């Protein structure tokens, strides 16, 4: 036996320790998805404040711009928050790509399997893939715009964007994609890690699924109502497009921007 051959045998005999990265990546995908879903719940509450009043939406916008802390607006703070969310979004998208069907054969196999099985959680996973794919583009377009125009948020500024700049089309698609993807994702996170399993996992899963659909339907309805409110304001405000909203109680301080 020559030395090269002996060396190869020795290398074969040593089994390398399994990488810890599959575990880390799985956890990172779950944590990034959870953070994004929780952020989207908060985001929905913030944008839906327009349903309360223009003043309420203006106040929340100014809160994020640091107006009530520093006495003047710093839209750059919004850019920093958007950049963090964008980073988390890219990380989550990259990690989730590992689970996407990799080629036509895998799509075909999964599609045939799903149609035959008529199994809700299997079908929901396919919807998660489709909505996730749509979010690559829809969410990126929205995030990039917010990153580069952080000061253009407000009752009139947002309404002008939604109606005058035709962003309502993007936001309508984004609403359905985000709420379906996030709702299915949070449900899957719970069953994947066994959270809220309790003593009767089957009953807990039924409750989780019911909660998932309830939350998804509620958030889509809230989102549609919110979008309709911005469209209404946008149509009414079209003749004064570009003008910023200023609550009556702060008009003496110099306006919205």
């Amino acid at each position, binding site marked *: 036996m020559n030395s090269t051959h002996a060396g190869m045998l020795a290398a074969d005999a040593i*089994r390398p*320790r*399994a*990488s*810890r990265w*599959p*575990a880390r*990546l*799985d*956890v990172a995908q779950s944590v990034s998805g959870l953070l994004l879903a929780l952020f989207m719940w908060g985001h929905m509450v913030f944008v839906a404040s327009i349903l309360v009043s223009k003043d309420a939406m203006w106040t929340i916008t100014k809160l994020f711009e640091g107006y009530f802390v520093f006495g003047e607006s710093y839209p750059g703070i919004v850019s920093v928050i958007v950049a963090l969310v964008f980073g988390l979004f890219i990380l989550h998208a990259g990690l989730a790509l*590992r*689970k996407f*069907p*990799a080629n036509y054969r*895998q799509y075909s*196999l*999964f599609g045939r*399997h*799903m*149609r*035959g*099985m*008529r*199994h809700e*959680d*299997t079908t929901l*996973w396919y919807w998660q893939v489709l909505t996730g794919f749509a979010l690559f583009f829809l969410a990126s377009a929205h995030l990039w715009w917010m990153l580069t125009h952080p000061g253009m948020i407000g009752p009139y500024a947002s309404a002008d964007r939604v109606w005058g700049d035709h962003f309502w089309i993007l936001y309508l698609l984004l609403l359905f994609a985000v709420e379906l993807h996030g709702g299915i994702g949070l449900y*899957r996170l719970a*069953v*994947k*890690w*066994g959270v809220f*399993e309790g003593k009767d*996992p089957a009953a807990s*899963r039924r409750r989780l699924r019911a909660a998932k659909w309830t939350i998804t339907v509620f958030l889509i309805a809230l989102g549609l109502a919110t979008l309709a409110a911005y469209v209404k304001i946008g149509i009414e405000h079209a003749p004064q497009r570009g003008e910023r909203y200023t609550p009556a109680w702060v008009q003496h301080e110099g306006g919205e921007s």
Partner: protein
Amino acid sequence: MNAPATARRLRVHVLRYNPAEPEVLPRTQTYEVDEAEGMTLFILLSELREKHDPSLQFDFVCRAGVCGSCGMVINGRPGLACRTLTAELPADITLAPLPTFELIGDLSVNTGKWMREMTERLEAWVHTKEQEVDLRRHEERMDPDLADEVYELDRCIECGCCVAACGTAHMRRDFVGAVGINKVGRFRLDPRDARGDEDFYELLGNDDGVFGCMSLLACNDLCPKELPLQSQIAFLRRRLARI
């Protein structure tokens, strides 16, 4: 078996193909059979083979949901022929072999080969501390509650329904499936097994193992033995993610 006066006429569509005769292309063959009271798919298939077509291939041994031989796809979903009553199905019944396994012929697949490869890959047997086992010595006593827990997971009959129901296994042929993850869970509980979580991570801590599971949970929902697969997979994922 006598058919009652109100018996349905069942139309059974069977996917036929014999790899030993590759010149005969896969085809669906339809048989018509009168439904009998308490009829299972196993009884129906036996009647088909006896009275209509002796060339029809399908597997069975126990006829009681114990051996796991008669797994097949029934109207799109995996299940055991011997545990499926025709009364639960529409009059049109479509039968196909379990996918992801090597086809022997018609409805017969080689689950044994797949299960053996998986068992060897996951080293699914008790690993004792001693190099040589003294067969004359009594086994150590096991707490009855723990023995019950081990037995609960050991009820798996390796029928292959969980693998055939798994979307991940369809796309990624190296995925160990719920049956494999459940096996590791079983040996992890066994106090005679000297292995710890670090050792189990070596076997299951990868994208073909527990971290490849996408939690579609059809395995859990269609397991003929109703094994707690959802809980087992989640439990092992939590344990191995901490390594």
